[in-house]
């Protein structure tokens, strides 16, 4: 039984891989369709393998439910999933993201006015960004209560440092020649900031913003594990594990992955619009 299961899973994998290799090395490899098709086939292969293995190996659904069961749950629980999404992503993660981002920009611009501050903030910020900030979640829940405000605060702190460090580094990323050009025009601080340094900083800033999207989700959900109202993705995940409703847990994970990928994609898309001029974005 185990043998057949593994062999059929491997066969499936080989088949998916074969199709993808043909597509990727084929004549149409550069078309938009194939570019979407290849990762889709890859993902689909993984899902079918999952389904197959779970069913053939008779894994208990309270350990790992098959994808079809998750899909069914997802479809049946849309209103709950939506409410959780609003609580966790919209209220918690997005608010925190925006606050953290604005604060980071503000501090970056302030710090940037003084070389002294910049030299102080970059290492400290870099250090803070490397910290396991997930650990502050219980503290913030204690301070700000169980509702979304504490989640937003955790998220704000988590996204603050990567965005700050990237923005400060970005604001410094102008060539001596570009700065000298501004000096030959006798340009003051603000024109230099708006016309040279902010545009030049954009690739860095977006790098920080992209990193921050995934952190925002982690932060909001982690914080819910330490106290929440009776709604929210972290709440639902934790409660559903307790109720052995693993299909619901996975449905929430799917929501998180969809939301995260969408946010990330959105950022990447905006980045493409804003930094169209950067060599990495040019086609």
């Amino acid at each position: 039984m185990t043998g057949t299961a593994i062999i059929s899973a491997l066969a499936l994998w080989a088949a998916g891989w074969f199709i993808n290799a043909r597509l990727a090395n084929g004549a149409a490899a550069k078309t938009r369709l194939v570019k979407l098709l290849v990762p889709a086939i890859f993902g689909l292969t993984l899902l079918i393998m999952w389904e197959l293995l779970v069913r053939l190996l008779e894994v208990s659904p309270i350990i790992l439910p098959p994808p079809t069961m998750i899909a069914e749950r997802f479809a049946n629980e849309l209103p709950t999933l939506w409410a959780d999404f609003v609580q966790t992503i919209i209220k918690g993660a997005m608010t925190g993201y925006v606050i953290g981002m604005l604060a980071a920009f503000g501090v970056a611009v302030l710090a940037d006015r003084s070389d002294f501050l910049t030299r102080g903030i970059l290492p400290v910020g870099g250090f803070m960004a490397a910290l396991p900030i997930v650990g502050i979640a219980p503290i913030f829940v204690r301070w700000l209560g169980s509702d979304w405000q504490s989640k937003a605060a955790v998220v704000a702190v988590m996204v603050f440092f990567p965005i700050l460090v990237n923005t400060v580094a970005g604001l410094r990323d102008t060539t001596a020649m570009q700065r000298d050009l501004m000096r030959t025009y006798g340009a003051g601080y603000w024109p230099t900031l708006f016309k040279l340094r902010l545009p030049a900083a954009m690739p860095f800033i977006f790098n920080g913003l992209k990193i921050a999207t995934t952190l925002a989700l982690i932060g909001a959900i982690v914080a819910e594990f330490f106290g929440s109202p009776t709604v929210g993705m972290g709440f639902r995940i934790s409660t559903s594990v307790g109720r052995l409703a693993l299909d619901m847990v996975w449905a929430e994970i799917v929501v998180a992955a969809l939301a995260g990928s969408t946010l990330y994609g959105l950022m990447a898309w905006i980045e493409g619009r804003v930094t169209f001029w950067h060599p990495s974005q040019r086609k």
Partner: protein
Amino acid sequence: DAHANDVTLQLQWVTQAQFAGYYVALDQGFYEEEGLNVTILPGGPDIAPPQVLAGGGADVMLNWMPSALAARERGLPVVNIAQPFKTSGLMLTCWKDTGIETVEDFRGKTIGVWFFGNEYPFLSWMSQAGIPTDGGDEGVTVLRQGFNVDPLLNREADCISTMTYNEYGQVLDAGVSEDELVTFMYEDQGVATLEDGIYALEENLEDPVFVDKMVRFVRASMKGWKWAEENPVEAAGIVLDNDETGAQSEAAQIRMMGEIAKLTAGSNGALDPADFQRTVDTLLAGGSDPVISAQPEGAWTSAITDAALN
């Protein structure tokens, strides 16, 4: 050999005096005397013991009966094989100055509740009392309480869930005096459900070797419990020795042991069918969102304790 003598026990919380009986049995060699090789796995806020049991990561688990019966309805046939805890230590603790005196006063208040399978007794109680749990002036606003007492101290909640042996003590430790508080014991409200029973998988109980192993396990565990009741300070010390976090305080564990002893005192390990029925009735009365929908069959067995205690 391993199959006949190895036992892995999944606790439902981190190491504390709530589980003193098992640590004592291990430490005092009671398990060894029975020829058993016991491993105790501490739990945590997001480890579901029934899941561990289902996955084969443990042979037996401790669980609250509502959670175990719910798992049974979900298709995981767990069976209560012993019930060392006679009475429930669960209660709601409220600030007196919020004006709460009776259950009716809960309306319009915010109450902290543990979830993760521990919400069932509360939901049944509110449903029996006719109080909605979805907020508003007429109902209570439910807060998912982390496993600590901060919401009360911060006054984010008017009442929170506490165990007599743990969280209640923490509230007092924070400097609050008992006369600032009002407490509602589930036991007094007639909605008590059985806590900390020992459960195994039904299919395993068809295996005589396993049954024999469980008999010895329960016998040794109960010996541990009775020893702990008699020697609370030593028992607390043993628990501390087994606490790998090193963060537990001796005073708190001694106090906890004292409170725990009150809960285990009435039990020799055998489940009283009346207690079981009271638990089931409470859960079935759960109104619109019942924890279980039908009288469970075969959810407990006296076979193990009968053999262990004669």
